[in-house]
């Protein structure tokens, strides 16, 4: 059975927005990504054979939309869209506010930022994170480990 559209919005628009914000690094783009994701669901969601995969479908679609936009941005720009340098500014987890935590995540390279944000959102299992990122679960584990290590270094450096 197809999940109720309103229920899907209520269940997932907030974690999707947080994931989008960590990817796009600004509110307008994050809102756009979430809207585009639900627009695509309205158009194509019925093609999903297993309704229990709706959550993974939404996160996967949002990520693909982000990557597509990013590629187009590279095409229209003289400079390739690169991630910020992985070196992070001072801070400590406990003393940071929510925005600063998001900023710290946003400073990670994309390959670490994606699994780590999804991990902290706590909406997806490791296998679902692997499905969303379209990589093996072992890759998710190793990227998560490195990503957390980078984040720990960041917090330690700034203790």
């Amino acid at each position, binding site marked *: 059975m*197809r999940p*109720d*559209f*309103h229920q899907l*919005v*209520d269940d997932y*628009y*907030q974690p999707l*927005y*947080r994931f989008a*914000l960590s990817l796009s690094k600004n*509110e*307008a*783009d*994050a*809102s*756009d990504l*979430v*809207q*585009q994701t*639900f*627009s695509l*669901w*309205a*158009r*194509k*969601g*019925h093609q999903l054979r297993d309704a229990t995969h709706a959550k993974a479908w939404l996160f996967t679609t949002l990520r693909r939309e982000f990557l597509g936009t990013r590629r*187009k941005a590279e095409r*229209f720009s003289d400079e390739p869209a690169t991630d910020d340098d992985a070196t992070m500014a001072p801070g400590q*987890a*406990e003393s*940071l*506010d*929510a*925005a600063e*935590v*998001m900023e710290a*995540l946003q400073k990670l390279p994309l390959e670490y930022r994606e699994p780590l*944000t999804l*991990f*902290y*959102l*706590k909406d997806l299992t*490791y296998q679902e994170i692997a499905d969303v990122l379209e990589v093996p679960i072992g890759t998710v*584990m190793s990227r*998560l*480990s490195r990503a*957390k290590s980078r*984040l*720990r270094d960041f*917090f330690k450096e700034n203790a």
Partner: protein
Amino acid sequence: MPEPYSETDAVIARKLAEIKPPADLRARLLAIEAPAEAREPGWWGVGISAAAAAIIAAFALLSMFGPDAGSVDPATAYFARFLSGPFRLEMTASNLPEVNSWLQSQDRSMQVPRSFDDQTLIGCRKVSWRGHEGALVCFKMEGGGIAHLVMFPTDEMPGPSEPQFAAAGEWDRAIWSSDGITCMLFAPHGRMPEILPVATAQRDRKIASSIRRSRALVFSKSVSGRPRISSPV
């Protein structure tokens, strides 16, 4: 094996959960709706009986432009919310050929009507509504403010041959269809008269004549400066 969930993990997860989306995002998402769940007879009223259309049109005329305008068609409601929230332009441009060539590169076959030539462009982006793919072009208005033109292929989203009006949120909306494009023009409340004639006057005598009639009927100013209906049809 996954690493154990640490105290730091818990703190970061908690702080991440504190980040709230923009207040109106949920409403904007709900306005999208799923086509299978919310299939109206037509997106803007197309497909309903002529009698029902006449009643709705009369109601729309009576209620348009007022701050308490009643419910509008789902597409207008959706784009009114969309335009009021933060959104991203995919390209900035100062002339129509640039915009039109970008739209073509994005598989949007529609072209901005030439009557918008004299408008000060800001930029554009792709939009979609219920699976229909369209484009949004933003213009600076003389005297400040921004007007937005939303375009869809008429064969997918038919529109009236003469402009029709509604109010939604902070916007007044005009909709008309010509040359295979359905145009929805959004201007800040009370400012449609400034841009609609300019935008459509050169385009189509029929439309221009309708605008003149609409202006005579609709755009008389109240004492407060807000437009109101002086002679509803």
